[in-house]
């Protein structure tokens, strides 16, 4: 009887320790869009000389959709990894340029790299809401049928490619 509070304490401490040590970032909210078809949208070209991006692009082949902006610092570091994925997997990477201007975007792409097959301009961020986006960068994997299969919150690294994107894309290409 005396030991009951102690046992309760140990159980509770263990419960919190498991939640704390499992290494999940509480700032990452799981997407409600997984398993749903990509939203219908038609974004104008963000840059002259480069195609815009619409839901019609998302058919016939798996693709990445990267939500980014030139004012977003974390977006700078993922351009290399995105370029690598596009090349190694031979898939298109579409850019959803979030609340940006053509001038700033052009300069930014030149400086940090341009992995994009096409870039759509989401000036007011309304299309991003249809994708369930709540910050930049976010990256979606869309399968050949246009269904959203995965969402990555934050910059994509080469380790993410190896551990998450590569196995998923291999499965989608089967």
């Amino acid at each position: 009887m005396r030991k009951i509070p102690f046992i309760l304490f140990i159980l509770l401490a263990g419960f919190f320790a498991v939640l704390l040590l499992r290494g999940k970032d509480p700032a990452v909210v799981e997407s409600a869009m997984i398993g749903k078809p990509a939203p219908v949208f038609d974004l104008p070209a963000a840059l002259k000389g480069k195609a815009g991006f619409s839901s019609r692009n998302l058919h016939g082949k798996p693709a990445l959709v990267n939500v980014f902006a030139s004012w977003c610092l974390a977006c700078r570091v993922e351009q290399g990894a995105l370029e690598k994925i596009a090349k190694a997997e031979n898939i298109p990477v579409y850019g959803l340029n979030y609340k940006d201007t053509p001038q700033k975007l052009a300069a930014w792409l030149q400086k940090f790299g341009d992995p994009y097959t096409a870039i759509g301009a989401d000036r007011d961020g309304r299309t991003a809401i249809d994708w369930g986006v709540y910050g930049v960068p976010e990256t979606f994997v869309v399968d050949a049928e246009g269904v959203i299969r995965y969402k990555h919150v934050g910059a994509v690294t080469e380790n993410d490619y190896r551990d998450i994107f590569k196995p998923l894309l291999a499965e989608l290409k089967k």
Partner: protein
Amino acid sequence: MRACFLFLLLMVLSFSAAAVEPGEMLKDPVLEARAREISKNLRCLVCQGEAIDDSNSDFAKDLRVLVRTRLAAGDTDDAVVNFLRDRYGDFILLKPPVENKTLLLWLTPFLVLGAGLCAAFAIIRRKP
């Protein structure tokens, strides 16, 4: 002493300011009131602990404007909330809905209260 009392009274009477900017508000006061009620139960996913009605983040502002646009277009309150639930999931709601998977969450306070009462009775009975 009186100043101290007045200070405490003002502290008690003050409430948190909403983040809604005048430019966002709808002209129709009934629609605006509905928008405020809806916004109070929508979570800002960037700040997480705050409702979009209280948050100054861009994300919260965009959702506040969206809620008002949908209401002005004739959506019901439920339709507006479900529109956002479809895109952001149940986590967008500050109050989780009562469902089978959230039943334990909702019942836990009562279970703990019951267990506490049982323990209290057992202890009181044992000591005359």
